[in-house]
């Protein structure tokens, strides 16, 4: 429904003059006011708006923090303390930024699970979905580099562990991995040089991210939003204009989410972080447990599941390489969901078997998250290996096979029928003026 007819008519001469030269008001009117949205969207569809707001918030707080932050091995830790103690409301800006990273991932994970449940990745939304995966990758890179900046013990050792992953390439071509790692570090170990370049990239990537978000929204407005039935928009009564209908619902979702966000900022600013990061980085002292931020834990669990043997399969010197490949694959594979899922039915509402496997996938991800926070020993490793298999099984086996064997439930003919029941294809008695005719 992206190419609906424009109803924008400039009312002033100046408006007409400007519209002929740069039709920005026309685009806003067509895409964000009159734009037809499915009438049956639930609150899970407010997360796009929530994420946009968080992105803007992270950039605003980040720019302010950068005014006071010193990206050097000797100054970074102290400058964060200066921000917290001496900058006016610096503690608040800093907590909004650090908690904001967690909230960003919380919202994006809900957004992605929503996509899985309602089949939002299927045709014609494949490009939209792939752009989404790219956004998640950029978010991960940005968050990882951002976590380096306080230059605490977890910052330092987190970077050391993660950048060292690339040295696994040495098992393919001797010296290749080491060369890449030293290139990333800008030296022979993680140092102030590394911190400096990570700061530069941490400032750059959010703007790249914003650009990709722009494409993501563009692609969304070409194919139109998916909805809980997964049906295409077929008739005018299937949809309502974005404003005031979708916008009023988005506003509720955004403010409800801000409530959770504020709770963490004002009452639990340290809860999502790690105490060790209040100790300044020390290359000579390794913390007992090196744990990434919670949002990386499922992927960290997959990485560490590959020990010298994986469920009885000996890996030997390739263990680390397998772990690294598996971890990156775990993210990349999401981009292939549109082609791995063979079912043409989008919404799990009408997919009796896939619905259960969706929850199986959610449990798998949460379990991996839990295991990622535990030391890599004993039963935890075995469990992580089993859930790693489950994770890839979902994409490579369940998605293709369930689509082939499943008999979908009876589906309504249209969104209108889903909402109003059979025979109520027209407008409900109470609706006087059809909202789509403004």
């Amino acid at each position: 429904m992206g190419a609906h007819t424009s109803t924008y008519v400039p009312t002033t001469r100046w408006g007409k003059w400007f519209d002929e030269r740069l039709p920005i008001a026309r685009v806003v009117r067509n895409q964000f006011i009159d734009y037809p949205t499915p009438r049956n969207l639930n609150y899970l569809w407010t997360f796009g708006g929530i994420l946009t707001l968080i992105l803007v918030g992270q950039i605003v707080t980040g720019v302010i923090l950068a005014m006071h932050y010193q990206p050097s091995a000797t100054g970074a830790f102290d400058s964060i303390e200066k921000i917290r103690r001496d900058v006016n409301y610096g503690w608040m800006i800093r907590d909004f930024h650090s908690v904001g990273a967690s909230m960003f991932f919380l919202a994006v994970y809900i957004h992605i699970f929503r996509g899985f449940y309602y089949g939002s990745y299927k045709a014609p939304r494949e490009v939209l979905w792939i752009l989404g995966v790219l956004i998640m990758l950029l978010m991960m890179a940005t968050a990882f580099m951002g976590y380096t900046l306080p230059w605490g013990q977890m910052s330092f050792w987190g970077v050391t562990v993660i950048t060292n992953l690339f040295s696994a390439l040495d098992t393919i071509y001797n010296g290749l991995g080491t060369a890449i790692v030293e290139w990333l570090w800008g030296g022979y170990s993680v140092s102030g040089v590394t911190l400096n370049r990570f700061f530069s990239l941490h400032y750059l990537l959010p703007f790249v991210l914003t650009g990709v978000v722009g494409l993501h929204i563009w692609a969304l407005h070409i194919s139109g939003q998916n909805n809980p039935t997964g049906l295409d928009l077929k008739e005018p009564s299937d949809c309502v204009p974005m404003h005031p209908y979708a916008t009023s619902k988005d506003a509720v979702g955004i403010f409800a989410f801000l409530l959770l966000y504020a709770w963490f900022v004002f009452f639990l600013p340290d809860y999502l972080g790690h105490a060790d990061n209040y100790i300044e980085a020390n290359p000579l002292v390794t913390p007992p447990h090196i744990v990434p931020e919670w949002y990386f834990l499922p992927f960290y669990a997959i990485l560490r599941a590959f020990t010298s043997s994986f469920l009885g399969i000996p890996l030997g010197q390739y263990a680390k390489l397998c772990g690294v490949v598996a971890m990156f694959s775990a993210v990349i594979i999401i981009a292939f969901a549109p082609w791995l899922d063979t079912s043409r039915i989008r919404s799990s509402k009408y997919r009796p078997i896939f619905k259960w496997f969706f929850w199986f996938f959610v449990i798998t991800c949460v379990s991996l998250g839990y295991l990622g926070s535990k030391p890599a020993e004993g039963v935890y490793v075995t469990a992580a290996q089993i859930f790693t298999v489950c994770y890839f099984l979902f994409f490579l086996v369940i998605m293709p096979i369930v689509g082939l064997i499943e008999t979908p439930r009876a589906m309504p003919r249209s969104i209108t029928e889903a909402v109003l029941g059979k025979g109520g294809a027209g407008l409900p008695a109470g609706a006087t003026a059809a909202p789509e005719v403004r």
Partner: protein
Amino acid sequence: MKKRVPVTLLFALAAVLVITSVSAEEAGHPAIERQPWSFSGFTGQFDRAQLQRGFQVYKEICSNCHALKHLDFRNLVQPGGPEFPEAAVKVLAKGWPNQITDGPNDEGKMFERPPLLSDPILGPYKNDQEARAAQNGALPPDLSLIARARDVERNPSWWIHPFLMLGDIANGYQEGGADYIYALLTGFSEAPADFKLVEGKYYNKVFPGHQISMPPPLSDGAVAYQDGTPQTVDNYARDVVAFLSWAADPSLDTRKQIGWQVILYLIVTTALLYLGKKRIWASIKH
């Protein structure tokens, strides 16, 4: 109503789990109990008198080895902290045993001077090496952030884990550092007979490895309180931990006060927006 029953059941189950969880926590680490801090939870605020007593303990005992480099003397005056009178802190700074190295002066020489209000609260050592040399190889850590840089590790069973997490989030609990330091300061004792203690180390039941280089710092009556608070190790420990918690998080009082205003604003706005949304959607079945 059909859907409500399982939800109620789930909540009942959750309640039972939370209640049983405390007893089910795995052993291995010595249990570090949660203390009733005045500043804990989502409503907690610092107790002014306690912060002042805590500073006294720091000054008379801890400062013999430990610095507070992220704190300036002026912080002791500012609202939300111990709030000592400015004149008193000026006198305190002037008499502080650990001088500030300043300079170079007109002759190009560095010189020592007493700290001003704007100077950090330094410990007795100029650098880590000097500290280690004086302390038999051990390094007394800076205490400005110690209350946030420590935590209590808990290892509940996996099925209890989410409920404990939700409980902590709902209660606004993040005082693990304070609980740990209190347990450490009161955790000194004679080593058990079968424990091999390294020469010059002290037995502490909560310190990792149970051997700590710091001698038991507190003893009954060691600090003379002016306000009639009983002069016990337990009180000293609680007071100095409260002070260190403030030192690590000087904006805690303001943070929580503003927090409630923000939460209230967001609740009201969310409710209004919800009513508005209901009204807008009133004529449209969805």
